[in-house]
């Protein structure tokens, strides 16, 4: 199957888990879901070994929003959303400071 290019962005401190990279340009197999992307990120790109800071019980941990092209993934089918060419997936952690 062909690969498609996507962009993954990290924010709100999550970039620290990924070698301080705020933006990754990735190629994923056509048909890859966002749920599968999360596993790919943990397996291949996460540098910090504390995976529980990103994934808990098989999904993104509480306190992290997942945005598909700037829309909450809950509007797009959550884990089951199938990635399309040029999609941008943004992971944002709750900020609390003031």
């Amino acid at each position, binding site marked *: 199957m062909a690969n498609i290019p996507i962009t993954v962005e990290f924010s709100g401190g999550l970039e620290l888990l990924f070698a301080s990279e705020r933006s990754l340009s990735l190629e994923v197999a056509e048909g890859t879901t966002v749920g599968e992307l999360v596993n790919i990120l943990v397996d291949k790109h996460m540098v910090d070994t504390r995976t*529980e800071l990103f994934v808990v019980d098989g999904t993104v941990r*509480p*306190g992290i*929003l997942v945005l598909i092209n700037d829309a*909450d993934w809950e509007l797009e089918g959550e884990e089951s959303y199938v990635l399309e060419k040029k999609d941008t997936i943004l992971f*944002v952690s709750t900020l609390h400071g003031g």
Partner: protein
Amino acid sequence: TPTATPELSAEEYLRYGRQLIMPQIGLPGQLRLKNTRVLIIGIGGLGCPAASYLSSAGVGTLGLLDHDLVELSNLHRQILHTLAYIGRPKVLSAIDRLRAANPNVTYIPHITALDKENALEIIQNYDLVLDCTDHPRVRYLVSDAAVIAGKTVVSASALKTEGQLVVVNKPTSSEEGGRGPCYRCYWPRPPPTESVVSCGEGGVLGPVVGVMGVLQALEAVKIISSGALEGQRAPASANEAAAGSPGTEGPSKPEPASMLFFSSYSPTPFKTLRMKGRRADCISCGTPSDPALKITASTIPDYDNFCGPGPDAVLL
């Protein structure tokens, strides 16, 4: 309780002239500002600029809540405080400064921490709340109490180079029940203890938290002057109710839920994120499948323990 004020003084016309001439404000909007009571929770990096612009815009009553004392390390971002107030309550420092610029405003000091015992009692005396706090624990408390009291909250946060802003429990015609999402709808579950990293106070750039605080004031001015809060209580004056067209649309325009996200080192620093909106089964603003879970005045949760290693916790 605020006094109903039917009109503006000559001094007020002069002072607020450059916002009065705008169709988005006008006399009706200015009278709404004057007759509105706003509570600012947290007089730090967000609360200082927010209080400054709300006071100068002519909000009638400003409550300021914080239990902290001014410290030297606050001054790089908490722009109301000065050296002379080091060691004194932030609330008093702020009020002295605000009054020097605008004595028309009624300032109400609350030198206390917000907790489940006092939250509802304090919040129900105001028309609009600004959440300028610095801990997720308090953010859930503010939202839960505001939902019970039927108040809107403009909630912002900032850390390092980034910020977030959402309006919580906003009057709207686009959601059932006439209210937008609460804080729990945006962030349904608090992060687990394991994911909370304790590392003292997090770093933050002063102008980053400053931008977010000013944007909170702006959002508050927009909400108040539009008349969107008027469903919450009786109009404060006959004049106000009959004030005519500018800014009198009320709580009508359908607006999808959104979060403003600021990442100051990004090439496109601001993003408007489209959010899911209200959750029908939200334990605060919705109808949970188990009715016993529904948060009420007598069951506001204990927020002391839910997010890990104490008051200095910093979330990743």
